[in-house]
């Protein structure tokens, strides 16, 4: 082992990526060689400095919101398999074109032809069709996604999203209505709308998707009123579904709203013999900041037969 080897591996030393014998040799070498000892000391100082840097951490709110948006997106997502592979997918053609000069040339020619045709049509009309412009004006701009300028020109490309108000009407059991209600329950920014959707969804708590959505609202909705609505809708399922019971227990122990905790306590009373429920009630009886919840927990525990 020489000084060059130590200098090349000193980063691996501080990041714990050297084998034990190599680590030992680095330490032995540094004891004999002041230059390498300085290098090692400097590297350790660098590592400490970088570790002291304040870093962004994922907050529970950020994680919950990312999960909520992902679940919404997953509702529309399909897995690529079976007949999907044979459906015309322009993006996959373009990806393939990157590796196939012949296909790329064909696509370019088709694109050029289509472009000439469109320009000809526009030129005959003299201006952009008014209907297209009107549609842009009807829809509000929801947000700007990206702005890029072509280098060396004054051309700017702005990508934005538009929202177009629509409405749909139908019976509550209609699949499209159900789909929209599920979406509203999870992601609508208006808590009143989330409550209304849960009120309608709770008519079908035995539907798997509805139950998932209600559990999600009980766990993650920011509004205690919505969480309480979801909790009420799930109360009848506590006995039969372990996932509902777990969600209730989480609410019982962790929800910051005393009303939701009280609701969960009463819902879980029907399964008070469950060991997890008894443990949670004991914890609440000892530690809950709310006096009513402490009393109620003791009452339910007192009426629970001990199981050894």
């Amino acid at each position, binding site marked *: 082992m020489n000084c060059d080897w130590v200098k090349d591996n000193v980063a691996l030393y501080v990041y714990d990526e050297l084998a034990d014998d190599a680590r030992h040799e680095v330490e032995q070498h540094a004891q004999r060689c002041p230059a390498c000892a300085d290098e090692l000391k400097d590297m350790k100082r660098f590592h400490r400095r970088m570790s*002291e840097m*304040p*870093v962004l951490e*994922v907050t529970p709110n950020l*994680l919950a919101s990312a*999960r909520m948006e*992902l679940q919404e997106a997953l509702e529309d997502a399909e897995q690529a398999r079976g007949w999907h592979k044979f459906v015309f997918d322009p993006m996959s053609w373009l990806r393939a074109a990157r590796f196939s000069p012949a296909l790329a040339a064909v696509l370019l020619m088709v694109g050029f032809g289509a472009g000439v045709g469109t320009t000809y049509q526009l030129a005959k009309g003299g201006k952009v069709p008014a209907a297209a412009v009107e549609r842009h004006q009807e829809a509000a701009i929801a947000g700007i996604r990206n702005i890029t300028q072509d280098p060396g020109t004054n051309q700017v490309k702005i990508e934005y999203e538009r929202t177009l108000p629509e409405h749909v009407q139908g019976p509550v059991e209609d699949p499209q209505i159900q789909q929209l209600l599920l979406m509203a329950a999870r992601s609508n920014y208006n808590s009143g709308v989330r409550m209304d959707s849960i009120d309608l969804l709770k008519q079908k708590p035995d539907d798997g998707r509805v139950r998932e959505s209600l559990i999600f609202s009980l766990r993650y909705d920011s509004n205690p009123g919505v969480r309480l609505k979801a909790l009420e809708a799930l109360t009848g399922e506590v006995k039969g579904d372990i996932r509902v019971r777990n969600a209730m227990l989480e609410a019982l122990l962790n929800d910051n709203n005393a009303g939701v905790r009280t609701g969960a306590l009463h819902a879980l009373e029907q399964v008070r013999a469950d060991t997890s429920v008894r443990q949670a009630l004991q914890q609440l009886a000892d530690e809950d900041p709310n006096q009513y919840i402490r009393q109620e927990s003791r009452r339910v525990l007192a009426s629970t037969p001990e199981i050894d």
Partner: protein
Amino acid sequence: MVGQSPSRINDADLIREAQQGNKTAFEELVRQYDGAVLRLALHLTGSEQDAKDIYQDAFLKAYRNLGSFRFECSFYTWIYRIVTNLCLDHLRRRQVRKEDAPVLTDEHGEQYSLLDQVADERAGASPERDLMRREMGHRINRALSKLTPRERMVFEMKHYQGLKLRTIGEALNTTEETAKNTLFRATQKLRAVLADLR
């Protein structure tokens, strides 16, 4: 145990169920790894919105392509491979636009860096000390932005995520040796830029 699944199903079972179209199984898989994925994206982009976009793109891509997952590597490596590719694309785009650390605008139109929102909650923290730490944070952030996207990625995965170089190599579709060399170059560059930080 309160708050945990009644039975811990392993990844392979969950993947097989998800491959049959069971979205609940896929969501269970997501929950096992999504904290780490979001943290990686947040550190690399410095923006909550960009991190959420990458998070969503990564898991949607995983869901859509789950049918082609052949258990040749762990799901952990596979999802990291997807997310590191998306992060690398993001870093490359940002480098083309020559952006520094992202700056946000609050409701009064004032600009601020997300890093300014990171509080020092350790015992003995004082406003002066906090300010110094923030300034040091900005300097380190600028130094990190000078690395190539790949060096930045390897350094992030090693220093902040604590992953082994072998895992990093697998996630980046390269060898452990290449990951080692990239880490070496990244630390050398950072040490040179931050040499006066004592």
